[in-house]
């Protein structure tokens, strides 16, 4: 055990963890809206809209996240026309490519979580709202959405942790996140176990925090 290396690499890895958290929080935020959007489409009665939303979640849940990042980072830059548009400013940066891939990925999972939450709401609650003469939009945003959010908290907590692990793939497109820096230190010192313990410890600590945060929210919004 090389404790000196562990102590030396700790601040470096902690700095890198900030990038991991940045990637995670932005992707989760964007992914939540994508997820809500597609969950609403899934509840639509039009079969084409429904199929489209299902196809989206099927493709993004059926392929590895690594493929998705590579398509967005390496693949899209290949289209000549695409490079001449203003979007290229975003897509040439690995940072934004990673965030786009993560958001689309977590959006697919979130849409499934929210959809099943919406479907478990008892029809009686919505009917009660209707019979009280509340408008459709208000029923949706004031009654259905809060209940669905409460229902989906445990599953969403898992998704946050899965996504946190997913951000490690950012290191494959040259981003120096926690895993990226850990790999760099391992490949220069050839001390994998020590670095793994420190980096893994930081990840576990983050998992622990998220786990408890969700538990706290579950308690707060329980009914």
């Amino acid at each position, binding site marked *: 055990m090389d404790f000196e290396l562990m102590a030396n690499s700790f601040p470096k890895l902690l700095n890198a963890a900030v990038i991991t958290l940045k990637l995670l929080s932005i992707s989760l935020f964007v992914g939540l809206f994508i997820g809500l959007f597609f969950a609403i489409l899934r509840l639509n009665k039009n079969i084409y809209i429904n199929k489209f939303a299902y196809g989206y979640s*099927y493709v993004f849940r*059926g392929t590895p996240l690594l493929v*998705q990042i*590579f398509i967005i980072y390496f*693949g899209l830059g290949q289209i000549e026309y695409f490079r001449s548009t203003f979007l290229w400013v975003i897509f040439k940066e690995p940072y934004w490519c990673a965030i786009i891939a993560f958001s689309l990925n977590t959006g697919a999972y979130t849409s499934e979580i929210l959809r099943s939450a919406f479907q478990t709401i008892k029809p009686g609650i919505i009917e009660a709202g209707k019979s009280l003469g509340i408008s459709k939009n208000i029923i949706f945003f004031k009654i259905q959405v809060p209940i669905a959010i409460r229902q989906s908290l445990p599953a969403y907590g898992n998704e946050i942790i899965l996504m*946190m692990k997913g951000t490690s793939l950012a290191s494959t497109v040259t981003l120096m996140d926690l895993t990226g820096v850990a790999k760099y230190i391992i*490949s220069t010192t050839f001390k*994998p176990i020590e670095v793994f313990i420190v980096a893994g410890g930081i990840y576990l600590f983050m998992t622990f925090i998220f786990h408890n945060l969700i538990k706290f929210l579950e308690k707060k919004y329980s009914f």
Partner: protein
Amino acid sequence: MEILAFGDTGWGDELFYATLMTIAVSITAMFIGFIFALIFTPLKLSKNKFLNFIANTYTTIIRGVPELLVIYLFFFGGTGAVMFVASIFGYNEYIEINAFITGAFAIGIISGAYSTEVFRGAIQSIDKGQFEASKVLGFKKIVYFFKIIMPQMLRLAIPNLSNVWQITLKDTSLISVTGLVEIMRQSYIAAGSTRDPLFFYSFAAVLYLLLTFLSMKLINKLEVKYSRGY
């Protein structure tokens, strides 16, 4: 379509073998995972606090640490560990472990943690009366586990195991960082030499979709088979 031709002119055969490699690694990893699950599930269910602690540490670490980090640990640390063990037995030459074994082992350990949780949940949701009845009837422990508990457990476990399979299959794409030529690595090579990453990565995505789709069909059949009594 020439680009996907079999033979020297296209990438068809390479991608075909790469797909077989992905399937082989996934199945090996899933199998190694089952072995880990067989070891750790009893520890999780045991009344001994210390054994519980060991099993919980395993599943918590694996489920809280990114797969890629675990793969790097095995990729960089695997050779060293094996050489250390060999040196105890007096063998000091350089030993190279091949990427398949390292990769399958790393993914297997990850998959094992998920399988452990699935088996634990399935066993815990079996009616307690079943255990008691088989004890009362005087079955041997092995007989009642394999003939009474196992069939009931599998029915409950298969839907969740299919999720574990999907996760395992997708995780094998990460082994490409160690240089094992599976779908992802082959696409990377092809994309590099043809300068057509969009096509090859999209094709890789299609291959993965195909694999998940086909395996879901198979698993659904298994599910029907094991729930026929209900």
